Structure formats: structure tokens, C-alpha cells
């Protein structure tokens, strides 16, 4: 047994139509054959009938307007008008009916799931020119609708600047000399109450008293030198005496005693 025969047998066993379907197939086949035969007959007759029909509808001896063709044309015109009216009526009916039907249909199916299952969205998106869409976008209008205050409130600008901005580099790139040159120092000084500041400073430091004390007590450099040398002499004598006395530690000898043995100055 050949492979072709086996294939046919298997095919016959696997695809065995039901009797109703077989009847339908037979009807279709008969109809198709009848149509084909009719087409052949009509095509053959048309060679003879077309010139004859033309002669009948447009007889040469009949004046124009009274020929059958003219009458047929008027009838066809009325038929065309009736057809156009019918199309208009059908279109209106469809306009009224289709939305209702479509709404009922869409209410009974999950269109999203239907699209997801039957539409290759990746392929669709791949064919979309995103750049062209972005080009057509009015970004200014989009940005104008943004609530920038809300966006800025959500941002920690201090952290952003601290982590992402090289402040040293920014400052290094600033020409501080040029900035200082543009400053109107005279205007700044003019806004200061220099007289008031000077009065406050003089009141705080009591300058006249300082001058009086400086000229009255700490006189000349030579007197200061004599005083400091005498203080050093006092310390030296104290250290020598302490060494002989052996009653004080060496560190205590560095600091001269105060009144009542306290280290603080006289009250």
C-alpha cells in the first residue's frame, strides 16, 4: 500500500462530515454548477441578444424621446431616486439602531480582554511613530498645566543641591573679584549708622577710661620693663626660698600666692 493511499484513508476516517453537512455541501455544489451553466448560456446568448436588444430599445425609425430606451431611462431614474431614498432611510435607521445594538453588545463582552487576546499590541505600537507624536505635542501647554509649587514641595532641594551640586566647583568658577567690583560699597556704607555704631562701641569699651588708665598707670616701656623684671625677681626669690624650705612642690612655686592663699586675685 502506497503512502498516498494511506493518507487518504486516514483523512477519510478522521474528517467524516455529518449527513446534514453532506447535504449542504451537495446543494452548494449543485447550485454552483447551475450558476456556472447559466453563466455559460447567458454569455453565449448575449452575443446574439445584445445587438437585438439594442435595436429594439433604440429603433432607428422612432424619434428620440419616444424610443423604449428613453422610457427605460426615465423608469431607471425613478428607480435610482427610490434607491437613494431607501439608502437614506436605511442609513437613518442604522444610525438609530446601531448605537443601541453596539451598546448592548459591548455591555455583554469585555472589550479590553478581547483586544488583549486578539490584537498584537506590540506590533501595533511598533508601527507607531512616537517621535512624530512627540513632535506634535505642545509641551509648553503641558508644562503650563503643571502645578510647579506642588512639584517643588515634594522635592528636598537642600538634599538635591548637597548631593548633586559641586558647590566648591561652582564657587571656584565664580569671579568673586568681579562680583566685589560690581558691589556698591559706598551705598552699603551709606545705609549703615556709622555714628550710632561708633557711639555704641565707645560706650561698650569705655574708651576715655581706657585712655586715662593707659596714660596714668602703664606709663612707659622702661617702667613696664622694670616692673616685669621685679616680678620675675620676686618669682626667682620665691623659688629659691621654696627650694630651701622644701615645703612646696615645684609647680606651686611657679604661681605666686594670692591673698589668704587663694589663687584668685584680690576681691
Amino acid at each position, binding site marked *: 500500500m502506497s503512502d498516498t493511499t494511506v493518507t487518504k484513508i486516514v483523512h477519510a476516517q478522521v474528517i467524516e462530515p455529518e449527513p446534514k453537512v453532506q447535504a449542504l455541501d451537495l446543494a452548494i455544489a449543485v447550485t454552483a454548477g447551475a450558476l456556472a451553466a447559466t453563466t455559460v448560456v447567458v454569455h453565449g446568448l448575449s452575443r446574439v441578444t445584445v445587438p437585438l436588444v439594442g435595436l429594439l430599445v433604440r429603433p432607428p425609425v422612432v424619434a428620440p424621446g419616444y424610443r423604449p430606451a428613453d422610457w427605460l431611462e426615465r423608469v431607471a431614474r425613478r428607480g435610482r431616486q427610490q434607491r437613494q431614498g431607501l439608502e437614506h432611510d436605511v442609513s437613518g435607521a442604522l444610525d438609530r439602531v446601531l448605537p443601541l445594538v453596539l451598546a448592548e453588545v459591548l455591555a455583554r463582552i469585555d472589550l479590553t480582554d478581547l483586544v488583549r487576546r486578539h490584537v498584537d499590541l506590540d506590533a501595533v505600537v511598533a508601527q507607531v511613530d512616537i517621535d512624530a507624536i512627540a513632535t506634535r505635542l505642545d509641551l509648553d501647554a503641558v508644562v503650563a498645566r503643571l502645578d510647579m509649587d506642588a512639584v517643588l514641595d515634594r522635592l528636598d532641594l537642600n538634599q538635591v543641591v548637597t548631593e548633586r551640586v559641586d558647590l566648591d566647583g561652582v564657587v571656584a568658577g565664580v569671579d568673586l573679584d568681579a562680583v566685589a567690583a560690581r558691589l556698591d560699597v559706598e551705598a552699603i556704607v551709606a545705609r549703615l549708622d556709622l555714628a550710632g555704631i561708633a557711639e555704641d562701641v565707645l560706650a561698650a569699651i569705655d574708651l576715655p577710661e581706657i585712655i586715662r588708665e593707659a596714660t596714668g598707670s602703664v606709663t612707659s616701656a622702661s617702667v613696664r620693663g622694670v*616692673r616685669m623684671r*621685679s*616680678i620675675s625677681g620676686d618669682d626667682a*626669690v620665691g623659688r629659691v626660698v621654696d627650694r630651701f624650705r622644701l615645703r612646696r612642690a615645684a609647680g606651686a612655686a611657679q604661681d605666686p600666692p594670692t591673698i589668704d592663699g587663694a589663687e584668685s586675685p584680690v*576681691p
Partner: protein
Amino acid sequence: MSEGRISPIPREARTYQGQRAGVVSRTLACVVDGLVVLVLLLSCYLGLNGFVFMLQPRSFQFVDVSFVALLFVGMGIAFLYFAGTWTAAGRTYGCHVMGLRVVDRRGMKPRMPLAIVRSALCVAVPIGLFWCVVSTKRRSLQDALLWTSVIYDWLPHHGDL
């Protein structure tokens, strides 16, 4: 001196202000005071001779004064000088030059009775100054007896420290 003010005292001397002075500073102050007393004594002697000259201009001769008399007059001048300056300013001219000040047990300027007694003791027993060498608190004999002290104070007015 109140806090927050600019001190006219040199930085190296500020830590010593208010502390008791030693024998070297006090001796130098006494030397200056001795010169002052000598000048005052000489002035008194010249004044006495001038007075005598005005009384007996023709037979004028310098007054012959014995050493003992000069010594006692000098001690009297020193007594008045010490008592007056300590009462008035708490320091003699020698103490002023050396930046020293005499204070009582409370750290205040000595009152007149205390100044008089201390002056008398200083004139009577001047060597008592050197007791501050062996005193652990740098007190002279007069200081030990009267509870006074001599401190470093470079400022002119008492209580500025």
C-alpha cells in the same frame, strides 16, 4: 577691671594682677620712697635755712643739725608720708612706680587708723619688710601683724581689678 573691657595692662602682666608682691618689687618701691623721703627732708632742711636766712640775713649760717635729729625728722616725714599716701590712695609713690598697692584683709584700701599703725610699724621696724622672703604668703612683719597685703596692681584706681 570689669569683664568685657579692653585692659591697658600688658598681656604678660595680667596674670599677676591681684597677687601678692615679692621682696624685690617691694624693696625697689621702698628705695623710691626713701628717695622721696630724702627729697622731702632736704626740702625741709632748705626751708628751715631759708626761714633762718630771712630772720638773720647778715649772720646767716646753715643750721647745724645732728644725725640723730635728721634721723628722727626723716622718720617723722616717712611716717606722715606713708600714712597719708596709704590713706589717700592706698599706695606710695614708690608703689605707684612699681605697680603695687596696699590692701587690708578684705582687699580694700586701708583706712586711716590702719594706715597710721602700719606706717608707724614700717618706720620703726623697716627690716620687717624682709619677712616676706620667708613668709609663705609673702607677708612682711607689718602685714603679718595687721593682716594687710601688698599686691600687684598696675591700674591707677583701687577696685579696677
